[in-house]
């Protein structure tokens, strides 16, 4: 993986999935989502996973996060890796204010009282344009602000592996660019691994240092498999990826075309 190394992804495995099989009971029979599925995720890389709805992207993240079991195969994570999982839904607790929601993860970890965490929390609120909203309830925040609070909650937890399940799909374009930037900055500054699931081709290319396209239709008896896996590199990456700049790069369109063909749309 020479390319992965170039984009901050090392050669150390963060997650190794080997010969994974997973079925769901479905009506009378079973829905076979994965059959001998293998995927390696390297430390420090940002892996975008693309695929049609229902092809098992969320199931894959659940399995990586350990919140869901599987039938056979091996899933190995870095020892003691802390997992941060961010969902499509912001899942803010309505009875907590923004700051209280943001510190939920560290509170569970038992480090919320540390001055360093407190300082970081306020920094994130500043950086993501939420200054002054710390004590607002979720009902007083817009959708974009809520998802930003959810992102702070995840980043403050300081995960080694960040799992993102289409977290920005319901946001306006501006907010989305801002949050993509925040995720990339976090991953780069701390050499953290990011697994970014989306069905937005554009976003997958702009964010990922590697891109995997899944294809399959478990409902039709066709388990998901990887139909395209490739590194995504832009000249500007040396300085840190800017999700706006790369969208203007001419390579962007090449990647776009390639992904579309893999998805059977080109």
């Amino acid at each position, binding site marked *: 993986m020479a390319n992965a190394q170039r984009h901050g992804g090392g050669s150390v495995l963060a997650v190794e999935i080997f010969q994974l099989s997973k079925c769901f009971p479905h009506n009378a029979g079973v829905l076979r989502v994965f059959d001998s599925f293998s995927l390696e995720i390297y430390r420090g890389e940002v892996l975008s996973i693309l695929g049609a709805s229902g092809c098992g992207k969320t199931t894959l993240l659940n399995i990586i996060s350990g919140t869901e079991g599987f039938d056979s195969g091996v899933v190995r994570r870095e020892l003691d890796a802390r997992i941060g999982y961010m969902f499509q839904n912001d899942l803010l607790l309505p009875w907590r204010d923004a700051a209280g929601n943001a510190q939920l993860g560290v509170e569970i970890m038992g480090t919320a009282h540390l001055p360093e965490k407190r300082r970081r929390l306020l920094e994130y609120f500043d950086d993501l344009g939420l200054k002054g909203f710390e004590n607002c309830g979720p*009902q007083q925040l817009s959708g974009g602000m809520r998802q930003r609070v959810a992102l702070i909650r995840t980043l403050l937890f300081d995960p080694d592996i960040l799992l993102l399940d289409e977290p920005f799909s319901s946001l306006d374009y501006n907010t989305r660019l801002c949050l993509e930037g925040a995720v990339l900055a976090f991953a780069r500054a701390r050499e953290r691994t990011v697994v970014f699931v989306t069905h937005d081709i554009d976003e997958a290319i702009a964010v990922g240092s590697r891109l995997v396209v899944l294809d399959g239709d478990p409902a039709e008896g066709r388990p998901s498999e990887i139909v395209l896996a490739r590194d995504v590199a832009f000249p500007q990456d040396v300085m840190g990826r800017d999700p706006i700049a790369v969208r203007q790069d001419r390579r962007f369109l090449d990647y776009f075309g390639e992904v579309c063909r893999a998805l059977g749309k080109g």
Partner: protein
Amino acid sequence: MRLRRLACELALVLLPAAILGLAWELAVMRSSRAQFLFASPSLVVKRLLEYVAQGDAVVDTWVTASEAFVGFLAGNAIGVIVGIALAYYPTVQRIAKWYILALGAIPIFSLAPMMIMWFGIGYVAKVMMSIFSTVLVTTGLAYAGATSGVEGEYVRLLRSFGASRQQVFLKVVVPSALSWVVASFRLTVGFALLGAFIGEFISAERGLGYRILRAGGTYDTPLVLAGITLIVVLALLLSKLVDLVGWLLLRGLRMKWVQERNALGRMG
């Protein structure tokens, strides 16, 4: 300017009452028979002032208020505990729900004779009636609140942070149940008042329910209506009081008020 708008608003609100009162007054003016049956605003006000001057009004209102308030507090406390416990033990809930449905089907009136046999005709019986009248509602609310977060993705979120079962319970289940219960305080205090009132209606020596029943027995229509007026005032005051209780409680627990769960909140 703001004061003028407020005065305007108040005048608008009072206008229908004034028109109705005036029509009522005029309609019964010429007939003593009609005045006997329907009283009149002036008679009600006169009787109310007498009632207050005798000192009975304050005592009766205070008695009913304290019965309802104590019943409200106890009913909510029991309801929260039982509701959360049922959420924690699904098997018990599966069995208990039939009993709760059965208890809920009992008209609260029908319990009054037993309450009197067991607890006498004093204060305790009324409080018990008030508790009975609230507790099933709060149990249902607490259970709904406690389970709403659990079935959803909140648990998956907390699990992804490595939360234990106890942490899920303390950070999602309990606050969720409380937020539902507190948001419905205005609703449940109405039930508490109803319970206390019915208790007094059956048998008592003091209280607004007792006074209204007695007044009815002696064809003292103005006093019945004066009593009802006080009940209305009391109900409004109690709903303000429980707003304050809820506010203090949430503040003490550093929780936010969750408005969307309160159907009555929409009306101010």
